[in-house]
């Protein structure tokens, strides 16, 4: 299985995902620069955290027009795993691959800390190695992480088991229904504000994020049918 980590101008967690997959999990990973138009040969794609294009205008709003995004959309349509964390999640919503938007945190402050989460669904390519309703803790680090969608969208997300992670104790950003991560209806596109790639080694304080990458690798080149 070959995985692409997209590098936008201003991405800064690209190396973190790369290292989590490559060094910690031994996966076959490449950095792919935003100017590249094709993702031929890749089985999965990761959109890292950071501040693509400075997050000027709105987080993720400009990255969506990067040349590589056409190929990312194709991968998503083809049912291949597409994962976005933090800025990656924001880009996925701006690109319309996931519903809703990420607003400025209610505190209007950037917040970096480790928060408890509930794994709401393990029925995705990325969470199959977690227990449903399992409690884990992952770092967050964002200023625009308050998930917003209108009521119908929220109801639809719940009805289709698309809420994958929820903040379990305090809600750190004001996100509606405590949503921390969602997937598309097919379950092959996952976006989340927390950073699993920061929790893959004991020396960094936690390994709660490791199974997300292990799930993805175990599910191999699975292609989710429509």
């Amino acid at each position: 299985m070959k995985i692409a980590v997209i590098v936008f101008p201003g991405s800064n967690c690209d190396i973190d995902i790369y290292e989590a997959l490559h060094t910690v999990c031994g996966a076959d990973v490449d950095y792919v620069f935003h100017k590249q138009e094709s993702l031929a040969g890749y089985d999965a794609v990761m959109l890292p955290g950071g501040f693509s294009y400075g997050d000027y205008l709105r987080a993720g709003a400009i990255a969506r027009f990067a040349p590589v995004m056409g190929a990312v959309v194709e991968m998503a349509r083809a049912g291949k795993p597409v994962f976005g964390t933090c800025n990656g999640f924001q880009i996925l919503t701006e690109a319309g691959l996931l519903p809703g938007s990420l607003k400025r945190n209610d505190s209007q402050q950037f917040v970096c800390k480790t928060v408890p989460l509930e794994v709401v669904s393990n029925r995705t390519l990325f969470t199959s190695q977690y227990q449903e309703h399992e409690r884990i803790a992952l770092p967050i680090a964002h200023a625009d992480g308050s998930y917003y969608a209108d009521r119908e969208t929220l109801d639809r997300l719940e009805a289709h088991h698309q809420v994958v992670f929820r903040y379990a104790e305090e809600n750190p950003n004001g996100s509606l229904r405590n949503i921390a991560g969602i997937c598309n209806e097919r379950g092959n596109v996952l976006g989340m504000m927390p950073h699993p790639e920061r929790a893959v080694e004991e020396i960094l304080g936690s390994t709660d994020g490791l199974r997300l990458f292990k799930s993805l690798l175990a599910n191999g080149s699975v292609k989710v049918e429509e």
Partner: protein
Amino acid sequence: MKQAMSPEEIKAKKPYLDWSLSEAEYDYISQQLLGRLPNYTETGLFSAMWSEHCSYKKSKPVLRLFPNKNARVLQGPGEGAGVVDIDDGQAVVFKAESHNHPTTVEPYQGAATGIGGILRDIFSMGARPVASLDSLHFGELTDAQTKMKVTGTVRGIGDYGNCMGIPTVAGETTFDPCYQGNVLCNAMSVGLMDQKDLQKGKAAGIGNAVMYVGAKTGRDGIHGATFASADFSDENATQRSAVQVGDPFMEKLLLEACLEVITKHPDWLVGIQDMGAAGIVSSSAEMASEGHSGMELDLDLVPQREAGMSAYEIMLSESQERMLLCVNKGHEEDVKKVFDFYDLEAVTIGRITAGHQYVLHHDGEVVCDIPVSSLTDDVLEESSEEQKPARIVAAEQAPAWQPHITDVEATLRSLLQQSTVADKSSLYQQYDSQVRTNTVVGPGSDAGVIRVRGTHKGLAMTTDGNGRFVYLSPKVGGQIALVEAVCNIIASGAEPLAITDCLNYGDPNDPEIFWELHQSVQGMAEACRVFDTPVISGNVSLYNENNGQAIHPTPMVGMVGLVKNLDHVIPSFVQQPGDRVYLVGQTGDDYAGSELQKMLQGEISGTLADFDLEPVRDYLHRLLKLMQAGKVASAHDLSEGGLGVALSETLFKTDLGMDLDLRHLTADQFFSETPGRLVVTVPAEFAADFESTMGGDAAMVGTVTNSHWLQARLANAEINQNVSELQQLWEEALPCQLKSKD
């Protein structure tokens, strides 16, 4: 572009006085250095380059006191940043820089561009910045203005560092009325490199290109360097022109492009330097001086954001996110291609010439033609008068203050809520402390610790400074600043390597202030020698005054240590019930300048006791050996609030407690701030080893317990406090004080 005034008019009207160039300097320049009257552009260049900020003309004699070499130092002061060998062909690069004046005027952008500037210093050396630290000093949180300054400053540091993807892993934040009108914002950056990639800010080789890369030049921040060197008054605050806007997104691209050229194409590059204070002129003149070269620049080629800029404005602009490169002839296009890839400009604006002249063309005219060295080396060093402050002479005669604490528990609870002591997590949570997944210990401990990826090594780092001590006894205060940094580094299990510093003082033309500067540097220098931690880089910030009122003399020490084995990083909080608790170091009646004195008296007074550095070094080294042997469970150094506060902090965020026999200490001494002390916990199995190694330098004072209570017997009091309650007081104090009444 015509010169705004003729040389004769300049001589007559003396506009340079407004730019902080003195008449004596002007005369020296025209009579001795040039043998003619300087034109308008030249006068402007001199005034910027001869400002204290660029030339250190007042502080140089004092800075010479610092040791700056040992076997590990690869590059001492004088370049963008200092460089220290960390074995395996790798090096750590670090420097601190003050951005006090910009932050006082415009907290958000001032702090943000402070971070931006220090990062460029690091990557101009060929290193990738791996961590930032910030040392912040504000007025009391009693007025809305100060609260806004705190929030703005923290947001500025966060937004810039977070966007760059460089973790902020440690720092300090203190509050004192002396900083009310003049905030201190010192930023430190730490980078990592392979020694083979080491760069210098050098321009040499006749015909080689001078290339300008990065953001366009605008009229922002003109005279920032002289602005930073002149003191402040409310009048100045309304002129407010010297503020720059940072663009961290651009800087991130600039960082990647520069590192690509440096590490992948060393044969293209002769030298590189960032454009900091005094923009193009300082970077280009310093590079030419370093390379003993002449240089000719065509200012019409400089990328400009605004039309109609004069030569003077182009040369002195402090627009952010720009670098200057000296590139081997024939590789200009290669360099340009790399920058093109990152959508950045890279333009050849001049060439290295034979001889030693600094020549600028603008609009078809030669607007400057002077020897390079006249800007960089011929500065008139200024000797300064100094005088021991009357307040210190008086304090030496007065009896020492004694607290006479009657309710030790209430005192502890109040101390935990003092803004300087209270939990700072509401501030540092706004910093991404984990990005790039190397942060082993983030903010909230004694020192931040970063792993060196691919090795089993780590780097520990801290910033420390306590203006109150330095104010009362500058020399001892200077020593304490260094000792505190050493204690923080050792508490995390690392071996101190070297330091950087920011020397923040008032107007040095005041003999009492110059005396404070001189004395405290002497104290720091002495301690640096004892601990073998040379000063490899640093920065001087003078004229920190507001309406004639100087800040406390506040030298900040930024120290980096080497963790040889990451398995032995020591946490600052207790680990296991049953572990023995030791107090390392002797406790005296040291209340002058303490948090306790400030809290009870509303002001500080007295003088500090002299102390011997060698014995402290010896027991700290023995302690470090024990840590490296895996025999220490946790360690936390004592600072503001003394033993009482330190013990509480070691229990916070755990579910453990302590039972202590401190009958050799009085209630007063529970809060004394004798320097060089730590609380250490040791697994019972290693207690005998620990005691035989530490001897009389550590006292067994109790054990870690399973109940979440801090229990201690003092000579004249008892303590029985629920740790959760103490923690809550400590955690809620700062957010509560910061939140405006609503």
